[in-house]
């Protein structure tokens, strides 16, 4: 019984978060619901050697895409940061691109 309630409580929390992402933006259009890619795909360890995993978070210029745009959750953004800096050090990803 108590276990079941716990499970539901968690689900409710997630829904709240989703609503936050749907807030209307300037110009009257709605933003697509942003989901953290790593949460959705259940990636526990962001591997710095996996370039294919990291490239979606690196726009043209070579900078790290901010959380407000990519929708990554805080926890995963932090892990992503370290993964990207490691990959940069190994020349898998550029520091800057002109």
């Amino acid at each position, binding site marked *: 019984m108590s276990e079941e309630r716990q*499970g539901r409580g968690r689900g409710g929390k997630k829904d709240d978060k989703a609503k936050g992402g*749907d807030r209307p933006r300037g110009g009257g259009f709605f933003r697509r619901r942003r989901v953290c*890619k790593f949460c959705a795909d259940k990636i*526990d360890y962001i591997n*710095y050697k996996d370039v294919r995993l990291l490239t979606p978070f690196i*726009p043209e210029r070579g900078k790290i895409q901010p959380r407000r*745009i990519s929708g990554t959750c805080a926890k995963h953004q932090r892990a992503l940061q370290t993964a990207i800096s*490691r990959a940069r050090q190994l020349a898998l990803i550029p*520091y800057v691109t002109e």
Partner: protein
Amino acid sequence: MSQNRQYELVYIVSPDASEQTIAELHTQVEQIVQRFHGTLDKTENWGRRKLAYEIGKAREGTYVVETITGSGELMKEIDRRLRVTDTIIRHLSVRIDEAIRVADRLRDQRKATQARRRVARGLPPEPSPSERRGDRDTDDVDDMGLEGTEVQR
């Protein structure tokens, strides 16, 4: 305790180096590991890869990944040796045992939660392959750059 840390070592060998030099470097690393009573768990050679930026004058390099279990002193020695080796243009060692432990715990937790919820709904704890939701990560990646212009249904 501190003897059993797991590390991942990646080094980039200069493009001028021959196959033989790469093999030699590998045995060198292996020897250091043995001297410090560690174990070399895995070696992966990625082969030649284009570098994202120039390092010195090199535009490409051979990547070698080694998984090592051992002490911090061992890694310190390897780091020192690789630093003085001219044929190695870049190297990075990362401690991975803790990250792996965290990842394992998260996965186990998620599995347990899923099983509990499924049992609460009167389903068997493990989902059958047919119940799985389709691949949604692939189209997520494609949409990445267009997010701003998309309108919510």
